């Protein structure tokens, strides 16, 4: 089956209700026996005594979507997963809110867990997305991924 690139980007935070609805949509896919979900939440880091209140995300969108398509195809080829759904925020996401949602499903747990983990790692390392950590006093610093 040939899959076309999907838009993973959402403006602002990913609502918890959206995550719940995504899970519910899978109840008719009865070949699934396991779901694995990763949720990235914006953390209130501190730097030089100042607290991060939000992260503002920007991306080189076309390249990110092409790269994400490649990552998705390679995960489908490598793991027996039934489906995978990926969403990443753009724009401002406040601390405590969700900025990344990766959701994989498979007949048995191992494939779902491993695929989910690999996709998260590759998103962080390979997608041209940048986070600007905004401080309470309007200053900022650029986020660094470990």
């Amino acid at each position: 089956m040939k899959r076309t690139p999907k838009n993973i980007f959402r403006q602002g935070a990913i609502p918890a209700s959206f995550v719940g609805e995504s899970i519910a949509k899978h109840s008719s896919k009865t070949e699934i026996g396991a779901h694995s979900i990763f949720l990235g939440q914006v953390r209130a880091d501190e730097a030089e005594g100042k607290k991060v209140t939000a992260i503002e995300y920007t991306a080189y969108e076309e390249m990110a979507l092409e790269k994400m398509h490649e990552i998705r195809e390679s995960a489908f080829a490598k793991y027996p997963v039934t489906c995978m759904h990926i969403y990443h925020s753009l724009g401002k996401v406040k601390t405590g809110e969700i900025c990344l949602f990766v959701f994989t499903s498979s007949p048995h747990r191992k494939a779902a867990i491993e695929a989910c983990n690999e996709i998260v790692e590759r998103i962080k390392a390979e997608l041209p997305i940048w986070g600007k950590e905004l401080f309470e006093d309007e200053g900022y610093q650029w986020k660094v991924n470990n």
Partner: protein
Amino acid sequence: MKILVFGQLTDIFGGSFVRMEDIPDTDTLVRKLEEKYPVLKRMKYLIAINKEIVRENTLLADGNEVCLLPPFSGG
């Protein structure tokens, strides 16, 4: 030639792109940019041509989409 920049590089160039003239290849691009913006020498970034990252000197043609990408920090 218009070069798109992202992330922390937008602070250096004061916006989302920089214009450079007479740039036959990526080595020349880096040399000229670093002459004009010395702070770039201390920054890490990759060059992408038409959404593909290039790691060796590469010829540039009219119509190429050239981008400077600082380290990614999504998620």
